[in-house]
């Protein structure tokens, strides 16, 4: 199993540009998450999904959009990039059962710089 894969690894955007960060998992996990991590800081949840076709906002959703058309894929869309979105973005997945959160598996991250 490849686990959670993310593309691209690095990207530089100009202010106002848009892009999609790709995330794929091959573990048949129902839950998927997008986080951002600013330098020297902890993780902040942007969006999450409990299954195909179902998404919901996390702590910092403004400026982002997501979709979940399949179990495997959970792309994150940035519209009108701003310098405040410069960060490292992590995608994660987990299998939630028995009413509680199980181990999250994280991807390697995408380092995004907006200039």
């Amino acid at each position, binding site marked *: 199993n490849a686990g*959670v894969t993310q593309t691209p690894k690095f990207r530089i955007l100009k202010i106002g540009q848009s892009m999609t960060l790709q995330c794929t998992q091959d573990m048949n996990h129902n839950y998927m*998450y997008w986080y951002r991590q600013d330098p020297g*800081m*902890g*993780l*902040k*949840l942007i969006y*999450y999904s*409990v299954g195909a076709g179902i998404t*919901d906002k*996390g702590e910092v959703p403004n400026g982002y959009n997501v979709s979940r058309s399949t179990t495997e894929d959970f792309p994150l869309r940035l519209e009108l990039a701003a310098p405040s979105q410069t960060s490292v973005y*992590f995608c*994660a997945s987990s299998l939630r059962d028995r*009413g*509680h*959160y*199980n*181990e*999250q*598996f*994280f*991807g*390697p*991250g995408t380092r995004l710089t907006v200039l």
Partner: protein
Amino acid sequence: LAKTTQPISMDSYEGQEVNITCSHNNIATNDYITWYQQFPSQGPRFIIQGYKTKVTNEVASLFIPADRKSSTLSLPRVSLSDTAVYYCLVGESSNYQLIWGAGTKLIIKP
């Protein structure tokens, strides 16, 4: 909502036992506590998860007192490779919220 609080940093020496405590007030009855480890330029990696009392696996132990307002991650006999940032996470099963701590930077010295 629960709020998690961890020490910003700690240091220790090789071969010592290290204990990192996370405070989580207002934790709900069904919430679990999970700890992750993160190395620079990598995503976090699961260490251990628990609900109450004590949980032990091959790399760590997790102690949760009866009131569940805190939890302590115990790393036995640390080595230089345990230098990393450690995060406490409270999963709120009632409203699908995930409350991450700000992380504790652990530095192990030779």
